[in-house]
């Protein structure tokens, strides 16, 4: 700051900082403002808008995959959107948070806004966005109602698996691999047992096992992100 002299009763340094602050102030974007209102935490809202799998490039990629799914569904009659969406969402969840994808991870760990809250907010936001995009794509593909909504519960389970694997292994890539492999095995097993590839998203009897699995994975995430108390 330049050295200036003013009246003795005026703290020019303070005035200068005040003016600078006004000139430099950043106006949050609409998404950040909305998130800030919903989460009641500007810090959490800022952490949300820097989520790797919520950035524009990632969202465009997701839309492109789902658009390809719509075309493939129309061309083959197989509900590709329903089969793709859980894997796409799982990848997004795995890339929402973690040491490998957050350059300032170490610093973030020392912050007052809890990293578990950041993880939760990011995972929910990615899940919500993927669910909305998936529903739009599923409806656009002209799939039956059972298929349109049937993949939401399996998606929850696959996302929970990806999140748990990413959290335990502290690696987003491991999370993606676990989610995709888990979902591929489930689809193939469903086709082998029932003869139809859509069995995994249309069989009502699978809803409870999917939910139970998701709960177990959620518990693992909570356990892995707890703060060890250390010995006394």
């Amino acid at each position, binding site marked *: *700051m330049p050295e200036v002299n003013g009246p003795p009763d005026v703290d020019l340094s303070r005035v200068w*900082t*005040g003016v*600078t*602050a*006004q000139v*430099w*102030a*950043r106006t949050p974007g609409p998404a950040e403002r909305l998130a800030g209102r919903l989460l009641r*935490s*500007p*810090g959490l809202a*800022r*952490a949300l808008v*820097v989520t790797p799998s919520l950035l524009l490039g990632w969202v465009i990629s997701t839309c492109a995959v789902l658009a390809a799914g719509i075309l493939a569904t129309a061309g083959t009659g197989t509900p590709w959107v329903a089969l793709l969406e859980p894997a796409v969402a799982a990848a997004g969840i795995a890339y929402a948070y973690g040491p490998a994808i*957050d*350059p*300032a*991870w*170490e*610093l*973030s*760990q*020392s*912050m*007052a*806004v*809890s990293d578990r809250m950041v993880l939760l907010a990011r995972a929910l936001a990615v899940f919500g966005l993927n669910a909305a995009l998936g529903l739009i794509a599923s409806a656009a593909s002209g799939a039956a109602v059972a298929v349109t909504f049937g993949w939401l519960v399996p998606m929850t389970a696959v996302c929970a698996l990806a999140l748990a694997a990413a959290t335990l292994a502290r690696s987003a890539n491991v999370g993606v691999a676990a989610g995709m492999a888990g979902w591929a095995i489930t689809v193939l097993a469903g086709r082998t047992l029932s003869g139809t590839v859509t069995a995994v998203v249309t069989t009502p009897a699978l809803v409870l096992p999917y939910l139970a699995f998701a709960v177990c994975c959620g518990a693992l995430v909570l356990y892995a992100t707890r*703060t*060890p*108390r*250390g*010995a*006394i």
Partner: protein
Amino acid sequence: MNVELTGLVRRFGRTQAVAGVSLRVGPGVFGLLGPNGAGKTSLLRMMATVLPPSSGRMELLGRDPREHPQRREIRRRLGYLPQNLGYYPGFTVTEFVEYFALLKDMPPGQVPRAVAAAVERVGLAGKRKSRLKTLSGGMLRRVGIAQAIVNDPELLLLDEPTAGLDPEQRVAFRTMLRDIGERATVVVSTHLVEDIGAACTEVALMNQGGIVFHGTPAQLTARGEGSGAAGDAPLERGYSAVLAEARA
């Protein structure tokens, strides 16, 4: 006392990085010296509540970091510069400092002024709109310092803060440390002995996870007098003498 450590231990598998450290630190600038692998960074990370201790007790700013509400209060009053400052390459200087000000739970109304003050204090006002990926190593270090001081911390933990700074910046930085140390506790981990001599009121020397010396820089200097220990400056000779004694 702002920092009270009792028998603090941290193990990584079979390796004991910190071996029963007990320390009491009040306001002022406290230097943590030691060779590479002495346990300075692990100790600092535990004080930053990033790394839980394997055993021992820790009280920071009169609070117990094992309890969630108290840990949150500590973190609100904490400034931390890690050894390896990760950064978001697309952020500007002010965006980065503001991000961490918000994560420190500062009242949003105070953030713009605090960010402006911190960025000016580290001499980066002219670079405030620059993306972090365009900055030099020394400038990034100053950005890291700015985020550490943005909340006017009561406990400031700096791991190798002067790495990459040029001599002029280091002089300005030491002046800033002395200023902050008048009302807060500043713990500086470094292996640059001259930083300690110029800025610290107290110093501890670590070796193999333990503290082998705790006193003033003058006392450390005195340990080197007539010892024949290696070093270009009196403080360096004191450092070498204490280390040689500990290793003997």
